[in-house]
């Protein structure tokens, strides 16, 4: 049994195949929001196009190569949390019995991001938050994360010529990740510490990597660089940060979950996307308010 099949129930099932166009599903709102609960602040990411390097491992003639790039069009705006989910936000989900206590710090001096959370924790938090707010919250896809991250997104190309020496890519990857880790303080920092990017989203690519819903994929490309065949492993998800990370869904501490000879993310955290209400949901909300 593959990890992927274990996940079917908990995953928000955003197939990585839907790469080219991100559409809005607009799920209907759940229970009405309880009073006194503030919906997290979001930033609107306006439509646009992203030259996007696909995540995962790509082989050409059985040899690893840089992933192909693709133009992704975002036709509709989307809302993403301005800050990562904080310790106190996450703590409310724990208090409600809907989330497991995070492995990271639990004392929240000055709005620290929740860390030490797995993909499972992140999705549990998203459904809890959806229930509490009556909105629809979910993890971003890797494409959405990359688009929102804008200039903070690192193209993980190694730019290495095709070679018979497999170690060339291992060494280049290690070197680039070691360079990025140089002097980086892994201690989580308060909201805003790493500043906002050009789209107004805070703390992207600081020292907390963020879970996405995108599955790890291994693909073969032909000589034109087009994907010929691929296998997705949804037991491993893409994390966004200073470099892309690939983490098993149950890992809470990236350092433990990393491999013997690579550089691991410092921390794992959560930033969610809020679905814009569909016409249906808007009508429903209107009805409800009209009735009340």
């Amino acid at each position: 049994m593959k990890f992927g099949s274990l996940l079917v129930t908990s995953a928000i099932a955003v197939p990585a195949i839907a790469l080219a166009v991100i559409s809005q599903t607009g799920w209907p709102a759940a229970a009405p929001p309880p009073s006194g609960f503030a919906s997290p602040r979001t930033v609107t990411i306006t439509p646009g196009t992203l030259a996007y390097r696909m995540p995962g491992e790509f082989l050409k003639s059985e040899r690893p190569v840089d992933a192909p790039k693709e133009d992704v069009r975002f036709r509709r705006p989307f809302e993403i949390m301005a800050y990562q989910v904080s310790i106190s936000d996450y703590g409310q989900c724990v208090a409600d019995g809907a989330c497991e206590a995070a492995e990271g710090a639990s004392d929240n001096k000055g709005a620290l991001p929740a860390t030490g959370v797995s993909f499972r924790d992140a999705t549990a938090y998203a459904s809890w938050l959806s229930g509490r707010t009556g909105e629809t919250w979910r993890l971003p896809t890797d494409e959405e994360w990359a688009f929102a991250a804008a200039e903070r997104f690192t193209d993980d190309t190694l730019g290495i010529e095709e070679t018979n020496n497999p170690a060339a890519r291992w060494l280049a990857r290690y070197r680039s990740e070691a360079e990025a880790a140089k002097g980086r303080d892994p201690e989580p920092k308060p909201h805003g510490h790493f500043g906002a990017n050009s789209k107004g989203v805070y703390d992207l690519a600081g020292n907390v990597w963020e879970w996405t819903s995108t599955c790890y994929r291994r693909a073969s490309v032909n000589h034109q660089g087009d994907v010929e065949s691929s296998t997705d492993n949804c037991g491993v998800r893409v994390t966004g940060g200073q470099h892309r990370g690939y983490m098993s869904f149950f890992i809470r501490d990236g350092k433990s979950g990393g491999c013997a000879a690579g550089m691991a993310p410092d921390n794992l955290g959560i930033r969610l996307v809020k679905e814009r209400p569909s016409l249906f949901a808007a009508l429903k909300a209107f009805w409800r308010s009209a009735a009340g």
Partner: protein
Amino acid sequence: MLTRREALLGTATGAAAAALLGSVLATPALAQAKVADIAGLPRVKVDLVAPPFAHAHDQVAKGGPKIIEYRMTIKEQPMVIDGEGTTLRAMTYEGSMPGPLMIVHEGDYVELTLVNPETNEMPHNIDFHAATGALGGGALTHVNPGEQAVLRWKATRTGTFVYHCAPTGMIPWHVVSGMSGAVMVLPRDGLKDEAGKPLKYDRIFYVGEHDLYVPRDENGKYKKYESLGDSYDETLKVMRGLIPTHVVFNGKVGALTGDNALKAKVGETVLFVHAQANRDTRPHLIGGHGDHVWEEGKFINPPAKDLETWFIRGGSAGAALYTFLQPGVYAYVNHNLIEAAELGATAHVMVEGEWNDDLMKQVQAPGPIPTN
């Protein structure tokens, strides 16, 4: 008597030290050089180099025995031992964990000036496992803050040997606070294989492994202390549990990874010197081997060959010689993999060079399982 004369010359201080020297006389005497002869030996002052590297040296000795002079300053200082900023009230030789590697040849004399600056809190000393008598020199080097002592000992046995601090009543605490290192005494004609053929190395990677015991507060967070004295009681309690909170190479989780990873080339021969003053360990080079390994570290014994993992007894230093045959990123670990991956005992070696398809080839890259 040499010992008496040494005592008169001021090498030994105090009645306790003289009494200890008395007991040394019972052991079979090795060839003794007269003090006048020693005075006539050439002196070489050698500057120590911070780990994981070794000071410049000849693998085959040039000329006759020498007196090699070293100076080590004891530094008590807070040291960050992991990526989370956990701080150990460390005690160190020369400010590094492990203390620097000293390399001499058989028949040479090591003359160490051990300095304990006034700013320190604790008395310290040094016990050389390679030296003979006086608790390895510990009884003759007990220095309080503001003092220094000079010890000379003759390198009569070849091999890699641990040195460590051993002050009365506090030995294990000083050792697991960072005070250990290694000496390598090379045969005058260099290293040899089991048939007596010479062996050479291009570089030394000197790995000192420390098991550390940092107390936690009621929330499970590692505690920080204002002073060494403050840290003692609670640290001792954790030590008595015998389960380290950290097992690190060169003083810190990640001290030898990432930007600090070790570097070598295909075809180069590396001598890994691995010291552990307190606790057993089992080095393993993932993807490589130990071509010639002196597990116990003593070069008069023929090296074991083609080892996958070697055993370093707590309180000893071992040496493993390996010629890299493939490029890539190697992990050099304590192959208790929990200690390697969770507690910190991992180093990385980045090896550049040409891939050898004969030794290994990926015949088929991972892909879908074909269906009939």
